[in-house]
């Protein structure tokens, strides 16, 4: 059982919680959970899971390039993610066409990122951190950037939420009602890009999907009310990110493993609840 002990233990967590960098990390996780949970149901409704994955890989590419050039890694990640999301947001409406373009760009970006990481001669923890995330990297500047971005995302959603949901659920009718569908697509993509870029240092490029997509998919299993779905997605994302951070403190292992596990379990739970309910209603 030594592995289990290594994975789950709460040794010294009390002391760790006193440290400023741990408090920063928890705050960052909480802010990220809030915006991820707000966006997730819309991402699911718009069928953009793969675009989120592509965006996160390009955030990785941007981060790797920044590392190699010796500039701020998170600026690099934001640059890569926003460029990717703008590109993906302008792609056509056809899912299949969109997916193949995303796949092409993603593969190239990932390859480029790997190459740049190999060329990098600095600390190897920096390399690994981009892929799997690391809370140690969050300092007060990151926190400020995170808070400003969160305010931007929330503000934009306040203004555009209803038309966004309308155009996600029923694009042609929304267009007929005068919803500026062609403007909202790229606007939403940029919100995804910004959030992704901020999530990459915390959960890592490979695992952004877990916080930006899974909470929305899980919530949609158990409720069809858009408001309740959003509340649930926030709850699940917070449980994953804040809970995952707390769980990772004792063992000193990456947050991403814990966060994704918690969120995945929430998803499985939601599916089971949905199945149970369907069985109940078909029996009745």
């Amino acid at each position, binding site marked *: 059982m030594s592995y289990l002990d290594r994975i789950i233990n709460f040794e010294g967590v009390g002391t760790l919680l006193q440290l400023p960098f741990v408090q920063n990390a928890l705050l960052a996780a909480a802010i990220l959970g809030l915006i991820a949970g707000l966006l997730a149901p819309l991402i699911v409704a718009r069928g953009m899971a793969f675009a989120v994955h592509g965006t996160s890989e390009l955030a990785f590419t941007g981060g790797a390039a920044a590392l190699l050039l010796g500039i701020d890694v998170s600026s690099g990640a934001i640059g890569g993610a926003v460029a990717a999301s703008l590109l993906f947001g302008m792609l056509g409406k056809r899912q299949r066409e969109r997916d193949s373009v995303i796949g092409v760009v993603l593969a190239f970006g990932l390859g480029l990122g790997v190459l740049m990481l190999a060329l990098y001669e600095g600390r190897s923890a920096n390399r690994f951190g981009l892929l799997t995330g690391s809370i140690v990297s969050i300092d007060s500047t990151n926190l400020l950037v995170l808070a400003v971005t969160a305010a931007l995302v929330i503000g934009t959603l306040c203004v555009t939420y209803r038309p966004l949901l309308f155009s996600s659920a029923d694009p042609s*009718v929304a267009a007929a009602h*005068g919803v500026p569908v062609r403007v909202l697509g790229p606007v939403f993509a940029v919100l995804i890009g910004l959030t992704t870029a901020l999530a990459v240092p915390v959960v890592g490029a490979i695992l952004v999907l877990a916080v930006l997509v899974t909470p929305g998919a899980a*919530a949609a299993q158990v409720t069809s009310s858009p408001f309740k779905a959003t509340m649930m997605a926030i709850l699940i994302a917070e449980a994953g990110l804040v809970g995952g951070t707390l769980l990772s403190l004792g063992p000193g292992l990456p947050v991403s493993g814990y966060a994704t596990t918690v969120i995945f379990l929430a998803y499985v739970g939601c599916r089971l609840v949905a199945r149970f309910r369907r069985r109940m209603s078909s029996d009745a």
Partner: protein
Amino acid sequence: MPSALPPDGRLLGPAGTAGEPDGDVPREVPAIRLRDARMSFGDRLLWDNLDLDVAAGEFVAVLGPNGSGKTTLLKVLLGLLPLSAGSLLIDGEPARRGSPRIGYIPQQTSADPELALRGRDLVGFGWDGHRMGMSFRRRAVRRRRVHAALAAVEATDYADVAVGRLSGGELQRLRVAQALVGDPAVLLCDEPFLGLDLAHQRTISRLIDDRRRTTSSAVVFVTHEINPVLHLVDRVVYLVNGRFRIGTPAEVMTSEVLSDLYGTDVDVVTVRGRLVVVGAEDDAVPRPGHAVHHVPDRAVR
């Protein structure tokens, strides 16, 4: 038909909210007034000198082959495209996008079963789905309108079910409710029967007919197939290759008129009370591939 019927207060609750058509005055201006309307893209002319007054409560069917400008006419009425020349008034006001004077009933398309959206949310989109910003103040009005619209199409029972789990017929009823929720002066129907079975076609046409009788909404019904609504149609607008004819079905749906429009021999025959058009390049049969750009991608996946 400027009838004495007041806009129905029972059906959709008290009127008088900003942005609605006048509450108590019977609708006396034509619901639609097109004057000298011309539409062309580059040197391709869709129609020219189109004059059309649609009275309140009138049912107008728009017919014609693919590419004749039916969809373009719809977009013009919705305020999404400007006319190349001429003028258009909807209920006395210039057409504009997102106008509450227009209710829009689209083609039947299915929704994603994983979508977190209920029937009442879909209907609510018809009320304020295009509006930016939050709207806490108008919540109560919104709820009342949505409730009334759901009741009018007898969809209250499944208003809280996820839209992706509904049948095509149920979903289409909700779309009628979505179009009615703003108490529109004009109902624009874009092939609303496509993909529906006969029983549901009858239900939807009854709901549309009820609406125009009780509240004098005008109906513009774009279709490939006139027969399911033939008994309701007051006038036909038949568009073919830059030319058109407007009149009652008896005036327009004749071998002479259609032969002249198509420039080839076309026969219109009546078989068991149904009109059959033979010889037109695009017979009066709905084609699944028609207007593909109207079908959202999740339907063709």
